[in-house]
């Protein structure tokens, strides 16, 4: 319970110690704490961003997948359609071709028939003349009756 100059010494020491703490102890720790807090909040924001971009990417990939599927289905449908068309065209082509062949054959047959008829006509005329010669035997003047024979030939 005795007061003396120790009091003053104590005040001085007190202030010096407090100033030391203020300058060398407090700021580094508080700085470290603040920096760590900033790091953590940054990390959390980063994680949040990552989660969002992941969700976005998932959505995007699903979208792409769906589009791809649609495209493929479209292509298949188109290919089928095209195949049908090609088959149809081939059928038409084949029919036309067949008709052509048939027509050519027909005309050839007709030509053949005409030639045959021509040759038959000649032969018939000869036969007729020969027949008539035989019938008439004696007096058929080929010259005198040539005109008549030609007219007969024409009628055949």
């Amino acid at each position, binding site marked *: 319970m005795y007061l003396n100059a120790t009091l003053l010494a104590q005040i001085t020491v007190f202030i010096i110690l*407090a100033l030391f703490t203020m300058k060398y102890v407090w700021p580094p720790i508080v700085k470290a704490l603040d920096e760590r807090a900033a790091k953590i909040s940054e990390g959390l924001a980063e994680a949040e961003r990552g989660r969002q971009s992941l969700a976005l990417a998932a959505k995007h990939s699903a979208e792409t997948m769906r589009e791809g599927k649609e495209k493929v289905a479209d292509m298949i449908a188109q290919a089928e359609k095209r195949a049908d068309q090609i088959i149809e065209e081939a059928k038409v082509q084949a029919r036309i071709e067949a008709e052509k062949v048939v027509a050519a054959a027909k005309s050839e047959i007709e030509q053949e028939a005409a030639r045959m008829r021509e040759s038959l006509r000649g032969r018939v005329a000869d036969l007729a003349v020969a027949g008539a010669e035989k019938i008439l035997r004696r007096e058929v003047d080929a010259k005198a009756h040539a005109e008549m024979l030609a007219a007969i030939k024409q009628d055949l």
Partner: protein
Amino acid sequence: MATGHEAATSAPNAGEYVLHHLGNLNSSGHPQTSMVDFSIINYDTVFFSSVLGVIGLFLLWRVARVATSGVPGRAQAALEILIEMVGNQAKAIVHNEQSRKFVAPLALTVFVWVFLMNSMDFLPVDLLPFLWQTLTGNPHAYLRVVPTADLNGTLGLSVGVLLLCFFYNIKIKGLGGWIHELFTAPFGNHPLLYLPNFVMQLIEFTAKTVSHGMRLFGNMYAGELLFLLIALMGMAFPSMSPFGGSLLWLGHLVTGTLWALFHIFIVVLQAFIFMMLTLVYLGQAHESH
């Protein structure tokens, strides 16, 4: 009877023992007799408080110097807990960002320093005095090792806080503003009330400072005294009959242990209270009535 007489001559009696332990190692060479004498200085209080303050702050500085914002080590984590605790209290009490840059470290200093000074009580009461007496060769050399059990030590702190209160009062309110407040608060602004107001303010500042210092001093002084009495109880055992002596020895063991354990609580609590009151008083200096 013969053994008791022998003990009394070789060792001081109880009263002398306690009084001797309560005498400071001061510049006058003998315990101070007048209540206030500023020509005397207590070497022991100044020495132990300075050494403890330097050791405590050196340890904190060692940790703070290599502080990292990455994963902290254990020492740094402990210091961070301490600083966050003090910082949060300061934030809640002192509503001034600029002032907190000094006030919060000041509160940390107070807490750590007072804690260390109080902790000197855990050393056996006779250890350092005995070493000192052996070292100086003077069996009657005085030494008190608990700076906070010296009124100069605790009032030194509380007066320091008072001076800082004056400083912040003037800094925040301006000299005129503060003087105006001294005469118009707490009763109101009226010429008749100027004097009562001022008297009230004087009483308030005095009461705050004295109770601030006295509270810590009283606790530590009482703690020290109790340790001395417990030590006396143990010391008395050779002079008693074997049965009574062993009871006293056991009593010393049990009470000494219990009081030391309880004192751990008091040491931390008083350091915390001293810190909180420092913040509260400095916070009040920032508030206008």
